[in-house]
């Protein structure tokens, strides 16, 4: 429940230890590098490391591309839940072993890429061969080479006629086009939809006249001529095609085998990632010819240990200093098990700014409470808890954020079950419907407290009461922050006065007719208490009116500001009313569940009825659970962010980003 205290650490070391110290810092992951602006002229300069960083980044890219290729040709078996599994922890020795083989692995990755490229080229060749074969297909019946010119006395003409022809029409057309020429031999090789393919043999003397006459009806020579008979050329092409396919199969087999080195590629890409980060930091460090300086923020509880580790190992000079008052340190939240669960919720809103309280602990408590109230079904809660528990046990190495969220929802599930029991919800009214439809006598699950559908007003009043507790908690936290700053005046006028006024107004409202007509609850307060409530409200209001603008000298402006602040009472009204969503969403879960139960039971009792009931029940409740989980999540967040945080929390801090081993695939076990 706290923001971790930060200190500044300055490390002075010798050039020869530079890389080792940086690697050690990276393994610790406890220092956010932050080099203060220094005056130039102190003999220190930064080094340009862009070139080496880019070299590492290129290598990461090579490995990453090789991994993508492997994903295509040797897909790893990944379950749908793999995203939950997190990064594997590997021994330092395994890691160094892989790093030592880095040249070998890199060239293996390059081979993978080359093979992939070759497969692409071979596929392109196959497409080309296929096109050639298609172009050759109509000529296949020709048994002389296509560039055959004729014999001593004859000319051989090969060509196409455009259009759709039959044997007869084509021969007639040719005869009609060449009335005054002696016989020529026309062989029709094939008739296509768009062209007729022919081979024509004629006397050499007539050749020119014949070709001209035929051109009149569209005769054209083929653009490409083979020097072998088309069928032979076709055979060659098919053989080439086969050879390319064999080549591809071999390459694919070899890529499939290369799938075994996927792990090496992953670890090595992480290795280069770590080194690229290191060089990026190295480029920012001020260095002289023999020494260098690292400076940054470190959490106070780790500062001593880190400092002694560095001095012992590298004889570096390490100094730790407190941060000056005005410096905005990066924020690291530090919570117990309860608070940790909603750190990511707090981060989603905003991290606390300097001097502000970390609201994680209270967020968790109220989140679990309200979430359960909105979902409020014992069976749904049990499902949520069981799913979260199984995921947590099955994937012990899942990412920290995911783990904490699942833990939060595990408890939300427990809370949902609790409220389900209080309100008598178990898959809505499934117990009643099932016993009535299938067993003849009706058993109703009695709510421990009351059934909201029978008395919604009661739950509405309680929702607002819970809301009021939530809002008061927010206001009290604000008061606590004032006290921590020793701002007693602010605490009284900004917190205590509000508490007085709101409480007084509520106490005034309770015994009235209006309240009775809404809630059917009667309150009889003694005259003394009634008097006291009026005084509380008036004192509170007066305090706010007079002192809210206490920073201003001008009395009119000050009163105006006070009046404006007093107007915020409408904000309180809308805040409290906003908690009516607890009732609405709770009812929505229950009623929709009832609708599905009713739909399922429409088919009547007996075996057939049960067969129809089960799918309706399963699908219906899955849908209902999904949509209401979403609703409960979103609206609980809203109650925290808008109503609760609105009372005391601003946020705006910057997250602590330590220099650490930022990897994609594995985590390395470091001995620290």
């Amino acid at each position, binding site marked *: 429940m706290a923001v971790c205290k930060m200190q500044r650490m300055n490390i002075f070391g010798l050039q020869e230890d530079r890389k080792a110290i940086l690697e050690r810092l990276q393994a610790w992951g406890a220092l956010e590098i932050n080099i203060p602006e220094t005056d130039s002229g102190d003999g220190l300069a930064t080094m340009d490391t862009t070139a080496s960083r880019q070299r590492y980044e290129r290598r990461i890219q090579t490995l990453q591309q090789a991994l993508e290729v492997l994903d295509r040709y040797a897909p790893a078996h990944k379950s749908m839940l793999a995203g939950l599994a997190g990064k594997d922890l590997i021994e330092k020795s395994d890691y160094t072993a892989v790093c030592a083989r880095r040249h070998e692995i890199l060239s293996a990755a390059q081979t993978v890429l080359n093979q992939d490229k070759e497969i692409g080229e071979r596929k392109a060749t196959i497409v080309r061969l296929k096109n050639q074969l298609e172009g050759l297909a109509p000529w296949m019946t020709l048994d002389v080479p296509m560039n055959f010119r004729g014999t001593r006395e004859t000319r051989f003409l090969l060509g196409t006629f455009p259009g759709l022809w039959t044997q007869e029409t084509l021969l007639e057309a040719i005869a009609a086009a060449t009335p005054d020429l002696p016989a020529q031999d026309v062989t029709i090789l094939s008739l296509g939809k768009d062209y007729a393919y022919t081979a024509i043999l004629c006397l050499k003397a007539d050749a020119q006249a014949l070709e001209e006459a035929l051109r009149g009806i569209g005769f054209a020579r083929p653009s490409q001529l083979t020097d072998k008979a088309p069928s032979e050329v076709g055979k060659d092409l098919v053989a080439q095609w086969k050879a390319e396919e064999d080549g591809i199969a071999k390459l694919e087999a070899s890529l499939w085998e290369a799938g075994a080195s996927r792990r090496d590629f992953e670890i090595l890409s992480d290795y280069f990632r770590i080194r690229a980060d290191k060089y990026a930091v190295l480029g920012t460090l001020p260095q002289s010819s023999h020494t260098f300086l690292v400076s940054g923020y470190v959490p106070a509880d780790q500062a001593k240990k880190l400092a002694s580790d560095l001095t012992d190992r590298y004889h570096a000079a390490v100094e730790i200093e407190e941060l000056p008052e005005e410096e905005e340190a990066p924020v690291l939240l530090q919570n117990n098990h309860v608070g940790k669960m909603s750190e990511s919720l707090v981060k*989603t809103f905003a991290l606390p700014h300097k001097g502000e309280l970390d609201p994680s602990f209270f967020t968790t408590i109220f989140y679990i409470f309200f979430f359960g109230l909105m979902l409020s079904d014992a069976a749904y809660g049990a499902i949520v808890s069981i799913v979260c528990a199984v995921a947590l046990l099955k994937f012990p190495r899942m990412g920290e954020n995911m783990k904490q969220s699942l833990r939060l929802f595990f408890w939300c599930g427990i809370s949902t079950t609790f409220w389900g029991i209080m309100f008598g919800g178990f898959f809505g009214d499934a117990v009643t419907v099932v016993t009535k439809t299938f067993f003849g006598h009706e058993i109703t699950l009695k709510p421990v407290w009351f059934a909201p559908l029978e008395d*919604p007003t009661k739950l509405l009043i309680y929702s607002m009461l819970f809301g009021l507790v939530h809002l008061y908690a927010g206001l009290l936290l604000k008061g606590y922050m004032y006290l921590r700053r020793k701002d007693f005046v602010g605490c009284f006028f900004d917190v205590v006065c509000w508490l007085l006024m709101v409480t007084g107004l509520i106490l005034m409202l309770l015994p009235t007719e209006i309240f009775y007509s809404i809630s059917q609850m009667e309150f009889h307060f003694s005259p003394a208490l009634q008097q006291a409530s009026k005084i509380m409200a008036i004192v509170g209001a007066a305090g706010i009116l007079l002192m809210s603008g206490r920073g201003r000298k001008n009395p009119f402006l000050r009163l105006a500001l006070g009046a404006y602040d007093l107007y915020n009472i409408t904000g309180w009204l809308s805040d409290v009313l*906003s908690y*009516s969503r607890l*009732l*609405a969403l709770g009812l*929505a879960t229950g*009623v929709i569940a009832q609708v599905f139960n*009713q739909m399922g039971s429409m088919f009547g009792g007996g075996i057939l009825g049960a067969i129809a009931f089960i799918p309706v029940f399963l699908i219906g409740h899955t849908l209902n659970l999904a949509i209401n989980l979403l*609703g409960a999540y979103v609206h609980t967040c809203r109650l925290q962010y808008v109503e609760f945080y609105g009372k005391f929390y601003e946020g705006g801090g910057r997250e602590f980003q330590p220099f650490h081993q930022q990897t994609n695939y594995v985590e390395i076990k470091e001995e620290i």
Partner: protein
Amino acid sequence: MSGIVYALIGIILAVTLAGCGSAFGVKIAGQAAAGVTSVDPSKFSKVLLLQLLPGTQGIYGLLVGFIAMGKIGLLGGGNVDVSVTSGLLILAACLPIAVVGLTSAILQGKTSAASIGVVAKKPEAFGKSMLFPAMVETYAILALLVSLLAVNGIQL
């Protein structure tokens, strides 16, 4: 006797108008979500959640309709004699969720689409972007509440 006609009109208005609104809203958000997914399929689950947000109004309409149907005995509870007055009362009670459900779902759909735009550019702001559509939904919840309490409170 004819009171049941008015009551049924109210129920149908609640279910259909709120349902139409949700269909509209989910459509608007869904088109934006599809656009984002076409560029970056990894954002699918996030934008899907945002698309679903305007879907709740339809459920609220159904909820009110269902309770009102139970009230007038349409769910196998035997014949309840519904007078014209009670029928009109139920019709009136159904109107808040019908009207607010229709409009707020469409508007929430537009807000969701805008939030989907946020996720496309800044995926880390997902949690914040989800709040904007939730703000619009508040008014549907208030309407639902009044409809519910009113239907529940009508004495036949």
